[in-house]
C-alpha cells in the first residue's frame, strides 16, 4: 500500500493521524477570492519530483499524477516489487480518476491568448486526459499488464480495486496496481462548489467535516492519492510477498434515481452483494468504514441503509472523511488504506466531530473516539454521483 494524503504523506504518518483523530482541513483564501461559496479544502503539499524523475517522465504528469507517482512508489517498495520484477512480469494498472481540470484549463487559456497550438508544449495532452494517471504511471514504471482508468465519480477508487479483484479472481491477471487519485486545485472544484453542497463552517475548518453529526452542513473537497497492490494468493506466496489482507467480497449497484441524491435501496444492494460474494453474514463484519461525506441528505440515506443491513449486529462504524474531507476519486482507495492500517494496528479510527447524532445516525454504533479493537473483517463503502455504489470487504490474513 502507499498513500499521499492531507493527513500524511506516507503510511506511518497517516497511521498516527488516524489514531490521534487529526484533521487535514484548512481554509483557503484563494477560493474565496475566486468566488467560491466555501473556502474549505483538504490540503496536500505539491510534490517536488525533480531529481526523482527525469523531465520526460515528469512533463506529462498532472497534479494528481504526481500524487499517484508517490503513493505508488511507496506501495511498490512495501510490496517488494522492483524494476527487475516489473520488467520480467506482467503487472497491471487500474486507477480511479474522474477529472483533470487544471491541465485542460491551462491549455485553453494559453490557446485563447496565443492563438497557436504549437505553444502548448508536449506535456499538455498527457496531463489533460481522464486517463492521465494510468497512462503516465504505466510509462514511468514500465508496466506490462492491463492498463486503464476507472471513472465512477466518488466510487472510482473503490471500483478500481473491485475491478482488479475481479480480473485476478477470474485468472486474467496475477498482479495489479490499483488506486485512486484526486486533484485539489480550485479549478477542479468550482462547479462542485456551485451545487452549494460544501460546508461553510469556515470559522472552524477542522470541525467543519462532521459525518453523521446532526449539525453537519456539507462536505469538504480534498485529494491526494492512494495505491493498493493486489495479487492472486498463489502469485503472492510464490514471490514471497508480504501479504497484508485478503479481499473477500466486492459488490456494486446503481441507484436508478437522482443524479446527486442517493437512496437507501442502491447502497443496501451494493453492500448485500459484497456480503454474498464474501460468503459471510452481516454479523461477521467487525468494522464499517462509511462513505458518509457530512452532507445532510447523503449521510441520512447511508445511515438508513447501514441500519437496514446491520441493524441486528451493530458493528463499529466511522467515516474517516471527518478527518480527511471528501477525497472524491481517491476516496475509495484511500479508505481501504485507512481501514487496513486500523486492522493491522487493532484500532478503529474516530469519526471526528460526531458530537450529537440525528435520528438516523442514532441507531448506528458510531465510534466518536479512537477505540482499541481487533478487526478481522471490515467493509468499506463508496457512493458517487449518478448513483454509482461500490462495496469492498477485506479480511485479516492470519
Amino acid at each position, binding site marked *: 500500500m502507499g498513500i499521499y494524503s492531507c493527513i500524511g504523506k506516507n503510511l506511518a504518518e497517516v497511521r498516527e493521524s488516524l489514531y490521534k483523530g487529526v484533521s487535514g482541513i484548512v481554509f483557503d483564501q484563494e477560493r474565496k477570492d475566486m468566488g467560491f461559496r466555501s473556502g474549505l479544502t483538504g490540503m496536500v503539499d505539491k510534490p517536488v519530483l525533480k531529481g526523482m524523475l*527525469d*523531465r*520526460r517522465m515528469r*512533463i506529462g504528469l498532472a497534479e494528481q499524477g504526481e500524487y499517484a507517482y508517490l503513493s505508488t512508489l511507496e506501495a511498490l517498495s512495501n510490496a517488494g516489487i522492483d524494476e527487475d520484477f516489473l520488467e520480467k512480469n506482467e503487472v497491471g494498472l487500474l486507477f480511479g480518476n474522474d477529472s483533470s481540470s487544471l491541465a485542460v484549463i491551462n491549455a485553453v487559456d494559453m490557446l485563447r491568448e496565443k492563438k*497557436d497550438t*504549437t*505553444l*502548448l*508544449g*508536449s*506535456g499538455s495532452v498527457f496531463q489533460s486526459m481522464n486517463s492521465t494517471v494510468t497512462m503516465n504511471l504505466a510509462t514511468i514504471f514500465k508496466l506490462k499488464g492491463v492498463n486503464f482508468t476507472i471513472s465512477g465519480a466518488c466510487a472510482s477508487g473503490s471500483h478500481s480495486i473491485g475491478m482488479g479483484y475481479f480480473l485476478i479472481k477470474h485468472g486474467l491477471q496475477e498482479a495489479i496496481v490499483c488506486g485512486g487519485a484526486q486533484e485539489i486545485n480550485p479549478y477542479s472544484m468550482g462547479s462542485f462548489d456551485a451545487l452549494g453542497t460544501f460546508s461553510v463552517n469556515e470559522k472552524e475548518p477542522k470541525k467543519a467535516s462532521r459525518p453523521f453529526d446532526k449539525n453537519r452542513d456539507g462536505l469538504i473537497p480534498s485529494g491526494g492519492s492512494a495505491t493498493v497492490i493486489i495479487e492472486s494468493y498463489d502469485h503472492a506466496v510464490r514471490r514471497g510477498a508480504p501479504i497484508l489482507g485478503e479481499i473477500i467480497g466486492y459488490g456494486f449497484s446503481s441507484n436508478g434515481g437522482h443524479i446527486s441524491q442517493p437512496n437507501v435501496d442502491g447502497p443496501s444492494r451494493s453492500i448485500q452483494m459484497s456480503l454474498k460474494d464474501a460468503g459471510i453474514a452481516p454479523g461477521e463484519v467487525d468494522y464499517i468504514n462509511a462513505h458518509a461525506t457530512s452532507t445532510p441528505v447523503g449521510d441520512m440515506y447511508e445511515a438508513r441503509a447501514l441500519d437496514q443491513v446491520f441493524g441486528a449486529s451493530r458493528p463499529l462504524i466511522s467515516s474517516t472523511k471527518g478527518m480527511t474531507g471528501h477525497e472524491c476519486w481517491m476516496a475509495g482507495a484511500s479508505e481501504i488504506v485507512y481501514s487496513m492500517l486500523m486492522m493491522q494496528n487493532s484500532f478503529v479510527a474516530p469519526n471526528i466531530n460526531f458530537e450529537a447524532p440525528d435520528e438516523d445516525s442514532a441507531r448506528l454504533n458510531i465510534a466518536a473516539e479512537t477505540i482499541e479493537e481487533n478487526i478481522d473483517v471490515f467493509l468499506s463503502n463508496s457512493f458517487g454521483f449518478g448513483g454509482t455504489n461500490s462495496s469492498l470487504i477485506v479480511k485479516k490474513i492470519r
Partner: protein
Amino acid sequence: MNRDEIINKVNAFLIEEFEVEEEQIVPEGILKDTLGLDSLDYVDLVVVIESNFGFKVKGEDFVSIVTLQDFYNYILDKVAEKELK
C-alpha cells in the same frame, strides 16, 4: 542580444529545462543522440525558443539542424533577421 548572450541562453535552457548534462554541451554534439532529445522534446523546443527569442520555429526548419552548432547558427540567423525588421 549579441552572439555570446544567445549561445549562453541556449545552453542555459538545454541544461535547466531539458536536463542535458553540461559535458554534452559541445558544438559538434548531435541534438538527437548526445543530447538525447526525442520527438516530443522538439515540440517543447518550439515553446522555449518562442519565449526566449520571440520567434516561431517551423517544423521543417529542424530537418537541417543536426548539431548543436547548427542550432546556434539557426537561432543567431533568426534573431538577426528579426532585429532587422
